[in-house]
């Protein structure tokens, strides 16, 4: 038995916590069914194209412009959410004030609303004749039907990811370490920079990654507010839909594959960064 246990890596954990084989089996089958096989299909469908067809599709000027907007916009939106999501999470964790529960529940709204509804609401609000769009137009900022509109929608749908990831990490941080830093002579900026942020860095990175990933794939809320002008405000998911509507399935999956690879590299590097920052604190 002992030799078997040593030679078979899946049996390395004997007895103590039973069910390892079973749960790992379920995990792999489930992930295959739900995630891997559909993604594999994407690659297989794309393989119908010749290399030059593939290259032609994904380097089309209109497609490249959409990549730039989708990835760039998602990055900006995730960064904005990181800063303000941190502040929201901080306020919700550290202070008690009347209405805190309501504010806390508000954070989840972008999760719960159908994205089309949020898209229409944001458009109505930021359009030229909207409550916010009007005044912004007055100072020369065109919010809806512009790249900024895209980013506004991506910020909206990404916020809960950052807040909900950071909340438990901040709650876990005792208020005493701030007092310790202060007693050692650190001012608020030094405490924030040297003590608080490094301690919650893994959660910060996770929240950022989730908000980014969600934004890259977002469709419903963006298409209303963006105006969908080719080369300017057309996001990649919209281009994919357009191709599908023209029955260009291979073209659609080719674009999807590129988006997928980009996102995967991005998430992987964040994960590695996170591993490194966690290793430092454990």
């Amino acid at each position, binding site marked *: 038995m002992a030799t078997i246990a040593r030679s078979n890596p899946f049996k390395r954990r004997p007895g103590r916590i039973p069910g390892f084989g079973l749960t790992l089996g379920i995990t792999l089958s489930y992930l295959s069914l739900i995630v891997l096989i559909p993604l594999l299909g994407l690659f297989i469908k794309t393989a119908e194209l010749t290399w030059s067809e593939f290259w032609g599709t994904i380097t089309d000027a209109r497609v490249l412009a959409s990549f730039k907007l989708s990835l760039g916009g998602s990055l900006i939106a995730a960064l904005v959410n990181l800063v303000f999501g941190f502040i929201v999470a901080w306020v919700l964790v550290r202070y008690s004030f009347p209405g805190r529960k309501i504010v806390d529940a508000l954070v989840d709204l972008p999760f719960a609303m159908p994205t089309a509804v949020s898209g229409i609401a944001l458009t109505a609000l930021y359009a030229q004749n909207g409550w916010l769009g009007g005044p912004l137009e007055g100072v020369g900022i065109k919010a809806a039907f512009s790249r900024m509109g895209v980013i506004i929608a991506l910020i909206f749908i990404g916020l809960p990811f950052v807040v909900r990831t950071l909340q438990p990490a901040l709650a876990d941080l005792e208020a*005493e370490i701030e007092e*310790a*830093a*202060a*007693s*050692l*002579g650190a*001012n608020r900026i030094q405490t924030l920079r*040297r003590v608080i942020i490094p301690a919650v860095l893994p959660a910060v990175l996770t929240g950022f990654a989730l908000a980014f990933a969600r934004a890259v794939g977002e469709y419903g809320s963006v298409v209303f507010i963006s105006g969908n002008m080719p080369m300017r405000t057309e996001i990649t998911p919209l281009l994919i839909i357009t191709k599908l509507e023209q029955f260009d399935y291979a073209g659609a999956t080719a674009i999807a594959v590129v988006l997928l690879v980009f996102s995967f590299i991005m998430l992987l590097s964040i994960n590695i960064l996170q591993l490194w920052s966690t290793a430092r604190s454990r």
Partner: protein
Amino acid sequence: MSIQIRNVTKTFGSFRALDDVSADIPTGELVALLGPSGSGKTTLLRLIAGLEDLDPGQGSIRYYEEDITGTPVRKRRVGFVFQHYALFRHMSVFENVAFGLKVLPRDKRPAKPQIKNRVHELLRLVQLDGLAGRFPSQLSGGQRQRVALARALAVEPRVLLLDEPFGALDAKVRAELRQWIRHLHEELRITSVFVTHDQDEAMEIADRVVVMSQGRIEQIGSPAEVYHTPKTAFVVNFLGQVNTFDGRANGRVIEFAGIRVDVADGRDRDGDVRVFVRPHEFELSRTANGTPGLTATILRIYAAGSVARLDLQLTDGRLITAHVPQDRFAALYASNGDRVFASPRRVHVF
């Protein structure tokens, strides 16, 4: 650096945590703030540190002659040690201890090699020099508390404040660490204040004990003073085991549990009083020997330990406890169910 606390009041909402408290903490002493939970001892420590603000206009706190009532904690140069260590968990032991030096303004900050020397010097002092590269999660509770202490000492604090420093440790480590803190204090002589609810701890290592209850100071004195000449009923009760009786006073004579004793503290009392007798202040004998004694039956004997502990039942059914030195106990030839006379050598009356 001495500390003067003058008429300090602190309220949280409608709760009065400290009520007009004044105390002097002399330079270089190790002082214990002792009391049950809710007595205000931690609040007082946090006020001395500046982690809490005084109620506006209610009293003042000075370090030596300098009024620091309104000074924020980071400018007070205090070393503060927390019950649950409050170490920075993403920093190594070295970085934790160096923190206070690294956040100094540029013109006061030592150069890197000096910081390194200073940190290693401190780690040697707390006997952790080999563990500079470890993270807090890799240390035991006692080691973490010593890192916290080294970190607090790095800024050369004017006063060292410790909030239940041994509270989170198990009994053996606790006993070792408090001896070690006492030695360290003798070496460094920094004015130090620590909070504890454990009277043994306070009695064992403090030069001076401040006994607190319900936001007020009951008594300040050396461990021997507060133990042997308690000023209030609370102090007698809180510092060790005690037998309590209701009595009546008539001048210097106190009558309780059917006996009369003279109280030789030079004070006249009248009316209802509370009488306290510590277990070791009973003299036991098998026969009435002329001194006023309580007649009692032995219920149970705990013979193990430095003294024999006896549970006694009085004729009216009340239970009392007496402690007798082992040789005296052996000379009594007493066992369960025997009748004895317990004469108080000394009583505390309030």
